[in-house]
């Protein structure tokens, strides 16, 4: 049995817990749930159906840092779902580093640690012979890392490009189909909860750049950082420009790309029948490789579908642990 701690009980943490409640994973027991105020812990497993919201209202809620659990209690798997911080990577980096050093496997959707400390965290994981997985960090539920690692072994990836931010894609879609201005489409996205109240990271292209970096460093083994990415956001895209594109059977999309070792994020003209041209909040990722040539994946890049990535990583951990007969 794998004893897991969900660290970060916000949107994703709750969505994962709900899924596990409805469809339990046989080999998995959730022993801890933690948020910024403290944690709930039960050595022989929490009864998810009895968890009240907020977490603090549950009997046995301990105020304090969940990292204590990682060092003091017996935990096999950390599911790290605290907010992404792209400047410091914290608190994620500390959580993940602590867990790996304690020989605890880690699954995360938190982009900060993967963006800023991938090398270090992978090294610790290797040294301690533990597993570190982060499928949910890019493209939500789209299984990009698993696909490349498991299905394209022996092929060489030449380029990766895609639409990796659902918020900007929603805005550009509304501009294309309804002729809205950028400002109006953004306001609509905020009202619908698609965009955050502070949408800067999305509309300035930084979120896409972060994902492109994670793909570049992880899949293509590059060693790049944010200053290596040419980043142009979508704030200057006008309805006139979109209508000019439309007249030629095209539209404008925010494309992140790794081509010839160059990383960029910028609005590009794209044919409406191009495989990457998806609408609404959908994401699309196209990879070019030597043998397979070209492959495009399309799916919801955020929201509850991200749970699919978390679950797949969790299953990988369970299977790998089984094969090593560690417990």
């Amino acid at each position, binding site marked *: 049995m794998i004893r897991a701690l969900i660290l970060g009980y916000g949107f994703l943490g709750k969505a994962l817990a709900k899924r596990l409640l409805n469809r339990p994973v046989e080999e998995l027991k959730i022993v801890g749930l933690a948020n910024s105020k403290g944690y709930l812990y039960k050595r022989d497993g929490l009864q998810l159906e009895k968890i009240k919201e907020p977490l603090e209202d549950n009997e046995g809620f301990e105020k304090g840092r969940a990292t204590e659990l990682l060092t003091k209690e017996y935990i096999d798997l950390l599911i790290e779902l605290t907010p992404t911080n792209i400047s410091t990577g914290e608190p994620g980096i500390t959580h993940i580093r602590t867990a790996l050093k304690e020989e605890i496997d880690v699954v995360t959707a938190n982009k900060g640690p993967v963006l800023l400390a991938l090398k270090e965290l992978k090294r610790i994981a290797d040294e301690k012979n533990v597993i570190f997985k982060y499928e949910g960090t890019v493209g939500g539920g789209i299984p990009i890392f698993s696909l490349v690692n498991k299905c394209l072994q022996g092929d060489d990836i030449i380029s990766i490009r895609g639409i990796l931010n659902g918020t900007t894609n929603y805005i550009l879609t509304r501009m294309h189909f309804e002729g809205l201005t950028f400002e109006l489409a953004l306001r609509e996205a905020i009202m619908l909860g698609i965009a955050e109240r502070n949408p800067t990271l999305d509309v300035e292209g930084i979120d896409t750049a972060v994902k492109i970096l994670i793909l570049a460093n992880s899949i293509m083994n590059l060693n790049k950082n944010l200053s290596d990415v040419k980043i142009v956001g979508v704030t200057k*895209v*006008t309805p006139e420009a979109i*209508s*000019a594109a439309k007249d*030629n059977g095209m539209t404008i999309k925010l494309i992140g790309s790794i081509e010839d070792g160059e990383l960029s994020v910028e609005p590009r*003209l*794209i*044919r409406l029948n191009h495989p990457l041209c998806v609408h609404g909040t959908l994401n699309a990722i196209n990879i070019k490789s030597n043998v397979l040539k070209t492959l495009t994946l399309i799916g919801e890049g955020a929201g509850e579908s991200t749970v699919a990535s978390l679950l797949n990583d969790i299953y990988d951990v369970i299977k790998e642990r089984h094969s090593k007969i560690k417990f």
Partner: protein
Amino acid sequence: MKVRLTLGLVDRPGTLLNVLEQIAIHGGNIISIIHNRDRITAGYVPVSINVEFPSSEQLEKAKSSIESIGVPVMESETLEKKVETFLLIGAIDIDLITSTLQNEGARLIGLSLIGSSKTPCLKLIIDTPLEKRHRLLKSLQSVISSSDCLLIREEEN
């Protein structure tokens, strides 16, 4: 790569055969030959040969070999071009753009101004020899970098 070589052949039997040999030695594959007999100048017949070479190095070697047998290569023009659309959002000096295109060997085949003077948008359809595309893009980007414009290029297939 496919190119059109325009050569000044002296109107003497055997010259063309000599040229074709030089092309073949360097791996060139002849697609077509056109004699421009109506353009004979100073004893030369301009001949246009469309050839496919495995690489640009082989093309360059073939050109030197042809010149070394006394046949001038009057023009060497790529047949691989890309027609693509660009959008330029913001106020920009059109002359600056057209002169950049000219300097980089690109041909403007369509130009339209959309939008109001407050939110201008320029649509350019440009025909560029493939090998010059990368440079053209860099030049356009550097021209607009000092302005507040946004250049949007077309995503490849």
